[in-house]
């Protein structure tokens, strides 16, 4: 098993993905194998934070007091320049196709990736 890099899911300011040495596939959800070819130990890599907005949804109704405090917040799907798709937060006025870059913000007691438009 290759070394695990810290990322935002564990409180570090980073987006990490895995790359398969065997078939070259990229995957975002961490596993001990490649979900395309099954090879063990995909290599962990740090993403640049650059990407393009694939979809957006501005959340105006939340279900917990912690998340309600942030309303409205924009949930986005971003296609990263490394080739994988991820969910994150972003500026409320982001539109599909916008070029974006990742920052980090506190949300409901956790660190989350937050995308801003590249000026």
């Amino acid at each position, binding site marked *: 098993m290759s070394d695990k890099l810290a990322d935002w*899911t564990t409180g570090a300011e980073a987006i990490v993905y895995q790359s398969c040495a065997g078939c070259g596939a990229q995957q*975002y*959800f*961490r596993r001990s194998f490649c979900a395309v070819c099954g090879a063990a130990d995909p290599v962990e890599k740090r993403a640049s934070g650059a990407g393009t907005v*694939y*979809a*957006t*949804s*501005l*959340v*105006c*109704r*939340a*279900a*917990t007091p912690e*998340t309600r405090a*942030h309303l*409205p*917040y924009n*949930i*986005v*799907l971003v296609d990263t320049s490394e080739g994988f*798709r*991820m*969910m*994150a*937060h972003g500026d409320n006025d982001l539109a*599909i196709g916008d070029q974006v870059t990742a920052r980090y913000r506190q*949300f*409901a007691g*956790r660190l*989350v990736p937050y995308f801003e438009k590249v000026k």
Partner: protein
Amino acid sequence: MSFITGVGLTSYGKHEGSSSLDLMSKAAELAIADAGLKRSEIDGVLCGYSTVSPHIMLATVFAEHFGIRPSYAHAVQVGGATGLAMTMLAHHLVDAGVAKHVLVVGGENRLTGQSRDASIQALAQVGHPDYEVTLGPTIPAYYGLVASRYMHEYCVTQQDLADFAVLMRKAALAHPGAQFHEPISIADVMASKPVAMPLKLLDCCPVSDGGAAFVISREPTSEAGVRVRGCAQAHTHQHVTAAPALNDLGAEIAIAKAKAASGVAISDVRYAAVYDSFTITLAMLLEDLGLAKRGEAAARVRAGYFDRDGEMPLNTHGGLLSYGHCGVGGAMAHLVETHLQMTGRAGNRQVRDASIALLHGDGGVLSSHISMFLERVR
């Protein structure tokens, strides 16, 4: 071969004081009576799940509560697609001779048994625990993401989506069991509170209490035979982050396999029952299934194509959007209504011809799909 020999459905909305088991029992009793059977003749039970009363063995809990001792019983969990998944399994079970009469049942007191916040929270957990749920999305947000992309690619507007909410409400007005009885307009939908843009409150199905059940049998038990002609599933992903491209979703795969399995073409279909958790879900599925061209489903709604007296009557009970959504039972109401239409028992909602029906269910975030063709025999 398998036949849907009986159906049962409660009203949807508030059933103050009823438990999930109460609602399941009520629907089961109606379905068994409708099939003309005694409860002792039920030898198979398939049930769904209840978010209000989770249990690792709900089918046996139900069987004991209901007072039957089946030779085959277990729960099935495929989110919103559970009802059709159970029907597909029951079809294969009776066809294989495992059971003679399988009771398929779902019911939940989702509205009065827990807070709305608790329901929203429970459902949001279909997301990835580390990479999605931590971001505070809700089910409407997952579908809001899909909607934004679909609208972008196929030039669909929020007004277009509103047409589906108005259509389902218009249908529900003719059903006394529906949760909503007030007509709504496009303007009402557009002015309703934002939930997860582009979806607003009236683009979303409600949370309901209710129960639904069917009996699937090896032989018809009455003159009016409704046969499962063929069905198929497709599962492409669980999480919206991992969903394939919009033109590669599971509905198209499932319908292609169901057509091959049944020898039925879309042009043979006379009645449609399609999952409608949100307006976008209905719009996308109608187009995925081939009931409208890409981006053109709303125009067909406006032209009356999906009206009760239109070319392809759709969800004539009001669907999840206006009959209501109690979880597993939610989309089972689509099949109950289809059965009533196919057997000429839909009263003031009766369509001219429902001899061949197409049903489609979706679970997760367009993750799990089941397409099914039913045919009236005799």
